[in-house]
């Protein structure tokens, strides 16, 4: 690479002041260089110091934080630069894309005006309002926003997450900066939308020739986007290398473990959770911060923090890096339970048929004036799914597709608006009070956020015992059961006396799981149980769920947006779109030969933690956004974004007028798709993906 260096960071240090006035180091001597047009992926788990590094470059650290060391942008030292001079560089030479575009835009100003402001701050002569608005529209067009005039006129809350983030990118490149810092730009987005946004970011970067510092916890995103990668752990860069080398031959045990814990969508393999937790800021000992968790730890590691060393641009801060060459993740870390090959063919436990649910639209109170029939918004239109005893079924789809609504309808144990729910032979629309009590014990739920789902004032023992009390277990039985439950989820019996705030996110999710398992449920509903967790912790929870399954645990209905997780944990998968079931079948069948065009797009959008494979892959980038819950309508919900529909001739009237119902390729397979033109291997009209010239790779 001969491109000139635009950003040179040396020995960057950031510390946050704690309540007692002590300085807690969160970034401890980070260094890297960024050349023109280059993409550097900064990857690590929460608390590694990625965001603090990014914010320090722009001088945007929160009050109370201090930055030291050096960061030179085109030769100008950024650290310690007076705020007026920093302001002149920000937005013009170095720009930032933030994680949450809804919060990052001013809610009370039109998006176009906010983009225009970025121009009016820096461009001289200062463009008029009219000119800035026109330029804003061009910028929006540049990041492939459909109907840029409408988007420019909109307020942030009127746009979808994907559009907002693309507008944020347009704002960042308004003044053609030399460096773009993107902090988790796609973490809050669905996979299909994530693909659009990464696409826009890539295009914007190419158009301006800017260097990109991409901060992400997602190794899949990094693999598909970055040229070089720097891995952070406990405030330091522990390994840096060109992207292919890092993924192929990691030289630091932490990187190896991290790679081993990432679930892949293309194969079900044992994952390697990294035992232990990273040290708290200021809590690292004198030696290597990873030493307490490292399986290759040597005496030297505990006394002296290793420096980055290596060759050919592949550096690792590890004294054992040569020994690592012969290791695999599975050999080094305790591998998780292997994935199950043959699903159990038990009797049906849960059967949902034609489930529908709608909500009234807000507004129009009837206190005064005419009483009108309220408009209703359809959250679920027709959901069909089945869970057999002992089986794990994944419910997938983009946000707003009705996954969580389906769970809520099941756990309500009431009469659904239409359709039917049958649990263990009981129809929920005709339950006696005694039946409801029995089923309350038989159906348990685990929700996404373990921070919010545990009462902070209760001891772990009381939390876990609560469902037992509700089911009127005798006191002695409860006292005996709690330690056993804690052990079953991988916690210590002595943890029972502590309160939730003493535990990490992963441990809390284990507590929540112990609570859900307490009454021996037959059906466990899991709502995104691992999406709030770091990958190395997530791998541990997935491992635990696999082990539970092996000990004949409950049947699971697992809601997630992450198809890679589905591949690791589920026997069958049900794909939802716009409140309808569009495809269902055994995981190997659906992942191996998806039939519905939506499933195909969804699968092709999942980031692959494998750089060559990610580059070679044909990605179906869907136009548009996931649908809002809508009114009941005929025809296929997906047709507005469907590549098959777009390529059809007169036959497309079928998609417009006839609502497709789930049909199997052959009556015995159990692999059904609700599509008039499903992708079947024998030359069906909707064949897709085998003609790459129509859908070129994104990169």
């Amino acid at each position, binding site marked *: 690479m001969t491109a000139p260096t635009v950003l040179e960071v040396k020995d960057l240090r950031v510390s946050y002041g704690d309540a007692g006035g002590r300085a807690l180091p969160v970034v401890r001597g980070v260094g890297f260089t960024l050349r023109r047009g280059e993409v550097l992926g900064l990857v690590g788990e929460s608390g590694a110091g990625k965001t603090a590094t990014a914010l320090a470059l722009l001088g945007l650290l929160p009050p109370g934080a201090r930055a030291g060391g050096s960061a030179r942008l085109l030769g100008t030292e950024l650290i310690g630069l007076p*705020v007026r001079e920093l302001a002149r560089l920000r937005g013009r030479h170095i720009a930032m894309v933030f994680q*949450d575009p809804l919060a990052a*835009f001013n*809610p*009370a100003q039109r998006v176009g005006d906010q983009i225009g402001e*970025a121009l009016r*701050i820096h461009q001289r002569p200062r463009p008029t309002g009219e000119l800035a608005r026109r330029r804003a529209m061009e910028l929006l067009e540049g990041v492939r926003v459909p109907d840029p005039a409408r988007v420019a006129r909109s*307020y942030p809350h*009127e746009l979808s997450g994907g559009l907002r983030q693309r507008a944020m990118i347009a704002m960042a490149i308004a003044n053609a900066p030399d460096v773009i810092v993107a902090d988790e730009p796609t973490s809050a987005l669905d996979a299909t939308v994530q693909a659009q946004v990464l696409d826009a970011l890539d295009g914007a970067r190419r158009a301006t020739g800017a260097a990109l510092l991409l901060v992400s916890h997602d190794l899949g995103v990094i693999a598909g986007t970055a040229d070089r990668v720097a891995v952070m752990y406990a405030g330091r860069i522990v390994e840096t290398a060109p992207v292919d080398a890092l993924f192929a031959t990691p030289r630091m045990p932490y990187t190896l473990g991290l790679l081993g814990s990432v679930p892949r969508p293309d194969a079900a393999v044992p994952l390697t959770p990294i035992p232990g937790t990273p040290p708290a800021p200021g809590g690292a000992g004198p030696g290597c911060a990873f030493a307490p968790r490292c399986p290759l730890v040597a005496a030297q590691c505990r006394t002296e923090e290793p420096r980055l060393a290596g060759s050919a641009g592949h550096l690792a801060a590890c004294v054992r890096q040569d020994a690592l060459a012969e290791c695999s993740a599975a050999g080094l870390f305790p591998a998780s339970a292997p994935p199950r090959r043959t699903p159990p063919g038990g009797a049906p436990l849960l059967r949902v048929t034609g489930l529908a649910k709608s909500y009234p639209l807000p507004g129009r109170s009837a206190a005064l004036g005419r009483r009108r029939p309220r408009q209703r918004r359809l959250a679920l239109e027709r959901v069909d799914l089945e869970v057999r005893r002992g089986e794990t079924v994944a419910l997938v789809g983009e946000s707003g597709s009705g996954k969580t609504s389906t769970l809520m309808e099941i756990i309500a144990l009431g009469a659904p608006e239409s359709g039917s729910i049958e649990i263990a032979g009981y129809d929920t629309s005709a339950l006696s009070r005694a039946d409801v009590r029995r089923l309350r014990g038989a159906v348990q739920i685990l929700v996404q956020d373990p921070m919010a789902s545990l009462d902070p004032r209760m001891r772990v023992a009381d939390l876990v015992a609560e469902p037992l009390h509700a089911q009127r277990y005798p006191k002695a039985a409860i006292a005996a059961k709690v330690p056993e439950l804690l052990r079953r989820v991988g916690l210590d019996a002595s943890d029972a006396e502590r309160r939730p705030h003493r535990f990490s996110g992963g441990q809390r999710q284990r507590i929540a799981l112990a609570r859900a398992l307490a009454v021996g449920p037959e059906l466990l509903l899991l709502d995104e149980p691992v999406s709030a967790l770091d990958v190395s912790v997530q791998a541990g929870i997935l491992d635990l769920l696999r082990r539970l399954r092996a000990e004949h645990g409950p049947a699971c209905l697992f809601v997630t947006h992450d198809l890679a997780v589905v591949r690791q944990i589920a026997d069958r998968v049900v794909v939802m779109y716009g409140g309808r079931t569009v495809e269902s079948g055994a995981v190997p069948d659906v992942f191996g030969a998806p039939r519905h065009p939506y499933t195909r797009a969804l699968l092709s959008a999942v980031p692959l933690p494998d750089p060559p494979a990610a580059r070679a892959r044909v990605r179906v980038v869907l136009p548009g956004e996931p649908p809002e819950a809508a009114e009941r309508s005929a025809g296929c919900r997906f047709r507005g974004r469907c590549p098959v529909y777009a390529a059809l001739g007169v036959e497309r009237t079928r998609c417009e007028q006839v609502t497709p119902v789930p049909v199997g390729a052959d009556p015995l397979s159990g692999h059904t798709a609700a599509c008039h033109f499903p992708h079947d291997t024998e030359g069906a009209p909707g064949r897709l993906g085998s003609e790459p010239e129509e859908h070129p790779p994104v990169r």
Partner: protein
Amino acid sequence: MVGRLSRRLAHGALLLLCSVFLSYVIASAALSPRAYFEDRQPRPSAATVNHELALLGTDDRTPVLARFGQWSWRAVHGDLGRTVDGDAVNAEFGRRIGVSTRLLLIGTLVGTGLGVLAGVWAAVRRHRLPDRALTVFSFLVLSVPTFVLALLFKEGALWFNQSAGHTVIRYTGERTPGLTGSLATHVKDRAVHLALPAATVALCAVASYSRYQRAATLDVLGSDHLRTAQAKGLTPGRALLRHGLRTSLIPLTTFFSFGFLTLFTGAVFTEQIFGWPGMGSWFMESAQKGDINSVVAVNLFAAVTVLLAGFVADVLHAVLDPRVRSR
């Protein structure tokens, strides 16, 4: 949005009706105009008293609902009845409404404006001297009842005038009676009279609004969009001015509609103490006389102003925050 606001107005009308009905019933139960007439010297005959009460429409032998019916029939036709002294309530209402409105309007505007500025200032300089001083000031003002505050002001002005040797600050009445001169002289005279009562009303407003504005500004100072504004190249001060101020005012609008009621209650005492012939002092005087019609008229005024303040707050909210407009 227009639909929403008109619905709000309709709700307001309903609330107004409830408020007037309740104040009529409570005033009729609590006040006794009969006692006022019977206490006259020489003591009038029972027939005279009954006759007088019947003329006023406040004869306690008629059921209260019937009395309310008669009163509201006339009120709908623009007649609020007569005071116990036989004057038209409408005329008195007309005389006093301007006085109260001036005091409340100026007190509220000055108080809200200064309160917002003080709150922003305290938030930007949080945990430093200005912030701490303002906190102490606010809690002092909030913990002292309005009438004590007004009396303190009055005493202070008295002392100031005495030490100055002549009357600098005038604190009785709305204007100097019998003053002659140009328009400018009249305006200046009124301004001098307005200073202390308006300051009393405004000070209470400053004390509470500055606390709310401080909290709202602190929220905004930590918000992502202010960080974005700086990432675009605005200095922290400009970012706060252009992007922070407006969003921090949004929660204040809700508070405004409630806070106005407190100000109104404070103004009742303020008028009384500074000898302003406004609605507040009228309320106190007529409550002592057992003048039901006047008390209800003042309540009508209070209800209308509070509901109007709520409506203004709604409009401001919609102007400031595009998110509520689309709803």
